[in-house]
């Protein structure tokens, strides 16, 4: 008999469907895991993090992290809808550069007992740094106030 591999359905909602945040604002929301038997889930993690994209190797920084494990608390229902909340930091701000991009997201990771794990993430923007365009040198003409020999 063929046993179907179950793939959990992870849903993440950010309150008020807000997508742009300022440093210091509260990021709040909820997540839930469905489409998988409770007994198949071994642990669940939620994190609010930034990561880089672009030419360079990925860097990652975790601002908020929480983990629930069925092994430690067997009566814990990992399926249940859970809320999360954190105050966003001052930096790094979301950034879309030419070689370097900084992205923020809420990431939920569900671990199954067979050893596999599944990830879902919801992106948001921190700050309001404008998109970088390749730029020629911008000259600011100033009158020369050259003084030779000191003031």
């Amino acid at each position, binding site marked *: 008999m063929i046993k179907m591999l179950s793939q959990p359905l992870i849903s993440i909602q950010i309150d008020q469907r807000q997508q742009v945040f300022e440093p210091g604002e509260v990021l709040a929301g909820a997540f839930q895991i469905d489409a998988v038997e409770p007994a198949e889930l071994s642990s669940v993690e939620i994190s609010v993090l930034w990561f880089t994209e672009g030419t360079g190797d990925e860097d990652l920084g975790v601002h908020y992290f929480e983990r629930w494990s069925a092994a430690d608390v067997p009566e814990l229902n990992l399926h249940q809808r859970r809320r999360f909340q954190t105050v966003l930091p001052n930096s790094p701000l979301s950034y879309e550069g030419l070689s370097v991009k900084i992205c923020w997201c809420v990431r939920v990771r569900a671990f199954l007992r067979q050893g596999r794990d599944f990830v879902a993430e919801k992106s948001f923007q921190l700050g309001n740094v404008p998109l970088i365009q390749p730029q020629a040198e911008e000259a600011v003409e100033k009158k020369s106030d050259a003084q*030779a020999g000191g003031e």
Partner: protein
Amino acid sequence: MFGKKRGHRRTGSKTLRNAGEILFFALLFVLGTAFLVLLLARKVIPEWRANHEFLETTATVLDKRIEHRHDPDGNLLFVPQAKIHDEQSPDDIWTYDISASSYSRDADAEALLDRFEVGQTYPCWYDPLNPEVAVLVRGYSLWFWMLLLAPVGFMLIGGGRLAYTLWHWGKSPEHQAARGQLGRIDLFEELGAREKDFPTIPHDADLTNSPGTHFQFRLPSSRSQGWRLLGAAAACLIWNGLVAVFVVLAVRKHVQGEFDWRLDLLVLPFLLVGGFLIYYFVREILIATGVGPTIMEISDHPLVPGQAYQVYVSQQGHLSMKSLEVLLRCEEQATFRQGTDTRTDRREVFSQRLFRTGDFQILPGEHFETRCELRVPEGAMHSFEADHNQVQWRLAVRGEAEGWPPFERSYPVVVYPPPRTNGNVAAEPVDHVRNEVGV
């Protein structure tokens, strides 16, 4: 090892990869341990016992010989041995030292045996646990103790990586990163409040520890001219030193009438590179000695987008300047691995000229100076520093002088995010990384 990176994904099973890594480093650790145990049992412990636990007695030398052996490579070795009779052992035994030291030259082994005369009595030391084991000479083979570094190295590398892999087994990248940030210890000083409140923004302590004479801070140059000069000198000397050997060889052949065109063709490109290195080295010397120091001072630091700052620049030297500019630049830097190489990609994303002038003289003993205003654009990205990616801001002074190569000196600055109207956020307590048991 066999997976490929496709964009941000890797092919191959992570579990298999970790298992392979554990197996490899466990093997390394086991091999190192086995090698260490073997060395201890066969060499170190017997030598130590001979020097500390053997008891002294006297023995008569009955005979001497040099035994011949072969090492694993087939080389002939010479082992000095003396036949002795002592009171503790029922039989006469052939011995010298506890390690049965061998020598590659017959003369060396003979010189050691010459210290003992047949028929004479000498002190010797015997093993109280096994009186049939005795030695005429004690001491330590210091070279041997250094050999212990090899298995210890294997154990440290294998054991360390094994512990690291097991510690991280089954942990997600987010979990590992959160643990790393939680357990981070600054070995030299506690993290300042500013660094905690503004993560990933580089420290600016090194930029503000030098007071200026016109404005608050004197900025350090990002590149030490001395190091560049030293690097250029070293590269020039080493390269040209090696090339000179082949050049001399080629010239000698020409002088002797033996024309080896293949050698000439081989040496030519290396000679060209050597010539370029000489040119580069001379250029660096000219810049270092001819173009005087450039001083950059700023009214405040760190910088914030939208705010205005005053900059003071002073240039010394005996120069006839064609142009002198002061610029504000922002550069992205991304480091990545390409095969076995590590490459860094740098891209300038912003450049603004703050000041420019030209056609003026800097007389000896005097200096040119100017002040200008600096304003980081509203909404500009702050400085950012991570392991592989950076956003760097810097002030640059670029000059062209008559008879000198163009020069540029840069001075890093740190830009912070703009302040919020109700003040910046204090860092959340570290215990936002919750316990694993669940809440």
